[in-house]
C-alpha cells in the first residue's frame, strides 16, 4: 500500500439514514468501511436500499429521497478526509468522477446515445483538469480503453454506444470510471445482464484495476456467486439495515444471520446441491426434484401424448422441432435446429444473448417469423403463426415470458389475465372457468386474495407466479419458459424453480426451459441443448453435458460460471 500507515479506510459510511420524501425509511443507519485496494460487496435484494447506499458515497440521492442522518467520509491519499455529504455543490462535483467514480448497472441506459464514447470518457478528464493538453488526455483515453481490454484506436473511440455490444458498453463504463484514477469506485451490479463469459472478463478487469491502483471498491450485487469471486468483505443489506458484516469467507461459508443463510441456500449450483454442507437443511428441495419428476412425470400426466411407453427413452416426443432455420435478410438467427421434448420432460435450452434461443421458443409458440423446417406437436405439424393454429393446438403450447413486469396487462386483474386463455381457447362456461382459475392460482401458491388485484400491487415473484398460472391454466402439454427467472432476485428465483419442478411432477407438463444460466441445469432439467450462433452445438442428459462436455464452448461456459 502506498498510503500512510495511519490510514485505515478510503471510504467510510457511518449510521447513514435516508428517507423517502413521504417519510418512509429507506436506509436505517448503514455503516461500512473500505480500505484501499479492498472490495466490499454490498449484498441485498431489489428494494433493500443497496443502490441508495452506493450512490450516497457520491453524495447523490435520487428524486424523492432525502438524507436524514449519518456521514460519509472520503480519504484520498494523504489528504484530509472529506465529508462527502457536508461539502458544497461545487466541491462535491469536483469529487465525483475524479476521487469517487460510479459504474452503473445498465450501461445501455447510462451512456449518452448521441455522443461518441471517446468524447464521453474525455469529458471526465476535461472537467477534472486531468492532463495538461488535449493530446495528453487523448493518450489517457487510449490507455484506459486498453486497460479494460478494448481497442484504443481512433476509429473505435469515434463509435456511438449503440455500435457496441453490452459487454463492450459496460467496459466503456468502467473505463470512464477509472479514467481519472479515482480512490473509490462504486459498482452497481455491473455484470447483471451480461453473459457469463463477459461477466468473467468484466470481473477480472475490475479486480485487476482495483489492485493495481489501490482503489477501494464498493461492489453492489445480489449475486452471491459473484461475491465469492471478487469481494474481500461482505455487508448484507436487508430493508435498509446491514444484517451481517464480515469477511467474504465468513459470511458465505458460515452465515450467522438467518436471512444470509436463506440467500446462500438460494444460489443455484452446478452440482445441483444447495451450497456447501453447513447443515442438512441447506440442501434445497429442488435438488432432488428432476429425477423424481421425470419418473413420476410419465405416470402422472394424462395428456394424449403420454399414452405411449413408460420407459424414459421410449417415450414419444410431445414436441419435436426439426430442421428449423430462421434468417433476417443475410443474418441467420437459427440454422437447421432439431430438438425433441418428450412428455413430462424438461429440456434446458442454454444460450447466451444473441444465440437465437428466444427466436426458437417463439417459433415453437407460433409468435416467430416465418421459418423453414417443421415444429410438430405429438406428431402433428404446427403452422408457423398462431393465427393458423387450432384452438386445441394453442391450448397445448403455452408461453411464460421473461419479465413479469411487462407480460401482464397492467389494467387487468390477475384473475382476468389468468382467465383469458380459457375464454379464448376453451368452451368452458363462466363458472367452470372461475373454478379453474382459482384451482390454478392455488397450484402456483398464489394467495387467492391477490386474484382481484392489479399486477402493480404484486411483487416480482408473485407476478411471475401469476404468469405461470396463466400458462398452466389450459393444462398445456408443453410449457415454454423463456428466461422466467432472470428478472427476479436470487431467492425468488429459487422459489420459482421449486414451483416449476413441483408443477411438472404434479401435472406432467413437458417444459422447454430457456435460459442463459447453466447453474440452473441440475435444478430443473433432464436434458440440455446448448445453442450458439443459431446452432445446437451440444445436447444430451444433464449429467453428460455437465460432467463430460464435448464442445469447447460448453467447457468455457462451465469454467466461467462463478462458484461459491
Amino acid at each position, binding site marked *: 500500500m502506498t498510503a500512510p500507515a495511519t490510514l485505515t479506510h478510503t471510504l467510510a459510511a457511518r449510521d447513514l439514514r435516508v428517507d423517502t420524501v413521504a417519510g418512509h425509511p429507506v436506509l436505517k443507519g448503514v455503516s461500512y468501511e473500505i480500505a484501499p485496494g479492498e472490495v466490499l460487496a454490498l449484498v441485498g435484494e431489489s428494494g433493500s436500499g443497496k443502490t441508495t447506499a452506493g*450512490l450516497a458515497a*457520491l453524495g*447523490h440521492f*435520487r*428524486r424523492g429521497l432525502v438524507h436524514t442522518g449519518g456521514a460519509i467520509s472520503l480519504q484520498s491519499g494523504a489528504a484530509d478526509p472529506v465529508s462527502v455529504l457536508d461539502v458544497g455543490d461545487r466541491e462535491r*462535483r*469536483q*469529487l*465525483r*468522477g*475524479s476521487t469517487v*467514480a*460510479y459504474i*452503473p448497472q*445498465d450501461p445501455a*441506459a*447510462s*451512456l*449518452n*446515445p*448521441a*455522443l461518441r464514447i471517446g468524447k464521453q470518457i474525455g*469529458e*471526465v478528464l476535461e*472537467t*477534472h483538469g486531468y492532463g495538461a493538453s488535449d493530446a495528453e488526455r487523448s493518450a489517457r483515453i487510449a490507455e484506459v480503453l486498453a486497460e479494460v481490454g478494448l481497442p484504443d484506436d481512433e476509429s473505435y473511440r469515434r463509435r*456511438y454506444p*449503440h*455500435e457496441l455490444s453490452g459487454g463492450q458498453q459496460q467496459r466503456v463504463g468502467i473505463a*470512464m470510471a477509472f479514467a481519472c484514477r479515482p480512490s473509490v469506485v462504486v459498482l452497481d451490479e455491473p455484470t447483471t445482464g451480461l453473459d457469463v463469459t463477459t461477466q468473467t472478463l468484466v470481473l477480472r478487469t475490475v479486480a485487476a484495476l482495483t489492485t493495481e491502483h489501490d482503489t477501494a471498491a464498493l461492489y453492489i450485487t445480489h449475486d452471491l456467486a459473484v461475491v465469492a469471486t471478487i469481494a474481500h468483505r461482505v455487508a448484507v443489506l436487508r430493508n435498509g439495515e446491514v444484517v451481517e458484516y464480515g469477511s467474504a469467507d465468513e459470511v458465505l461459508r458460515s452465515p450467522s444471520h438467518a436471512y444470509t443463510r436463506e440467500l446462500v441456500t438460494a444460489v443455484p449450483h452446478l452440482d445441483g446441491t444447495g451450497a456447501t454442507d453447513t447443515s442438512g437443511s441447506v440442501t434445497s428441495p429442488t435438488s432432488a426434484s428432476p429425477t423424481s419428476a421425470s419418473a413420476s412425470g410419465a405416470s402422472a400426466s394424462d395428456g394424449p401424448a403420454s399414452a405411449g411407453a413408460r420407459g424414459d427413452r421410449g417415450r414419444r416426443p410431445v414436441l419435436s422441432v426439426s430442421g428449423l432455420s430462421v434468417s433476417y435478410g443475410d443474418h441467420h438467427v437459427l440454422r437447421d435446429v432439431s430438438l425433441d421434448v418428450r412428455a413430462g420432460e424438461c429440456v434446458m435450452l442454454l444460450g447466451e444473448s444473441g444465440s437465437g434461443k428466444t427466436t426458437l421458443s417463439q417459433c415453437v409458440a407460433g409468435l416467430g417469423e416465418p421459418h423453414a423446417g417443421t415444429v410438430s406437436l405429438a406428431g402433428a405439424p404446427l403452422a408457423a403463426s398462431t393465427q393458423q393454429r387450432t384452438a386445441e393446438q394453442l391450448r397445448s403450447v403455452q408461453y411464460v415470458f421473461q419479465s413479469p413486469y411487462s407480460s401482464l396487462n397492467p389494467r387487468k386483474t390477475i384473475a382476468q389475465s389468468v382467465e383469458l386463455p380459457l375464454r379464448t381457447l376453451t368452451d368452458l362456461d363462466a363458472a367452470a372457468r372461475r373454478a379453474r382459475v382459482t384451482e390454478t392460482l392455488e397450484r402456483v401458491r398464489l394467495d387467492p386474495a391477490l386474484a382481484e388485484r392489479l399486477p402493480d400491487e404484486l411483487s416480482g415473484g408473485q407476478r411471475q407466479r401469476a404468469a405461470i398460472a396463466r400458462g398452466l391454466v389450459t393444462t398445456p402439454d408443453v410449457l415454454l419458459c423463456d428466461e422466467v427467472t432472470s428478472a427476479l432476485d436470487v431467492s425468488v428465483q429459487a422459489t420459482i424453480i421449486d414451483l416449476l419442478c413441483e408443477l411438472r411432477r404434479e401435472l406432467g407438463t413437458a417444459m422447454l426451459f430457456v435460459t442463459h444460466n447453466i447453474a440452473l441445469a441440475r435444478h430443473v432439467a433432464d436434458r440440455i441443448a446448448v445453442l450458439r450462433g443459431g446452432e445446437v452445438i451440444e445436447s444430451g442428459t444433464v449429467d453428460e453435458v455437465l460432467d463430460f462436455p464435448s464442445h469447447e464452448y460448453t467447457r468455457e461456459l462451465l469454467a466461467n460460471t462463478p462458484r461459491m
Partner: protein
Amino acid sequence: MFRLILRRLAISVAVLWLVTLLVFVATLLLPGDPARAILGQQATPERIAALNDQLGLDAPVWQRYLDWLGGVFTGDLGTSAASQGPVTELLGGRIGASLVLLVGAAVISTAGGLALGTWSALRRGRAVDHTVSGLSLVVAALPEFVIGVALIVVLSTTVLPLFPSVTLAPPGEPVWSQPIQLVLPILTLTLVVTPYITRMMRATMSEVLDSGYVEMARLKGLPERVVITRHAVPHAIGPVAQVIAIQLAWLAGGVVVVEFLFRYPGIGQALIDAVNNRDVEVVQAITLLIAGVYIVVNLIADIVGIMTNPKLRAEVAR
C-alpha cells in the same frame, strides 16, 4: 440518411398533390357563381356567359384542374377575378408581410418555449413549475382572438398606450418600415403557440432528466450547464420538434385571424377578402400556400428528428 430524407420528401410531394386536388374540389363546391359575384346581382345572363367564357369556367372540370395545376408548376397562379391582376402580383408583397409575422412568432415562441420548458423541468414540483404549468394551461385554453383583443385593451388603449392596435403603414409601404406595429400581432401569435411548446418541452425534459445518462453525467462531476446542454437538451429536442412543427404549421393558418384583427396587410387579410369576393383563384393560391407551409415545417421536424438520433443517422449511412 439521405435515402430516409428523400423518402420523406417524396411523401411530402404526394401529400401536396392531394392537397391541390382537395383545394380544387373544395372551391368547386363553394356556393354561388364567381361570375355573378364579380358582376353583381343586376348582371345580364349574356354578360355572365361572356365572363364565364373569359375565365374558362365552362371547360370540363378535369381540364380546368389540369390547367390550374400546370399554372401552379410554372408559377402562374391565375388571374384574380376581383382585381383583374395576376394572383402572384397581388400576393407578392403580402407573403413577405405574413412571413415577417410567422418567422418572428416562430423564433420567439420556439426559443421561449424551449427555455421555459427546460427551466420548469429543472424545478419540477416547485412553485415556479406549478406557476408555469398553470399559466401555460390557461393561455393555451384561450383562442387567439381573445388574446389579441386582451392585448389591445391592455397595451394599446388607455391602460398602457404603448403600441398601435392596427397597422399604420399605408398600402405599398413594407410593414417592417414601422417595427412598432409588428409588436402586438407577433406577441399574440407567440402567446398562442408558446404554451404547447413549453408543456411538451417540460414533459420530455423531465423524462430525459430522469434518464440513466443524465444521472451518469452528474455522477461524472460535470458542471450542471454541461449536463443540461450536452446531455439532456439534445435528447429532448427530437420529440419536441414534432410539436413545434405542428404549432408552426398552425401559425400559418392562425395568421388569418390575427391579421384580420390587426388589419395587417398579409395573406390572411387577402384570403378573407378573396372569400368575400368569391375570388376563387386567390383562395386556391393562398390555401395551397398555407398547406405548403404545413408540409415543409413537418418535413423539417422529421429531419431534425433524424439528425438528433445517431441510431437513425447511422442506419441511413450504411
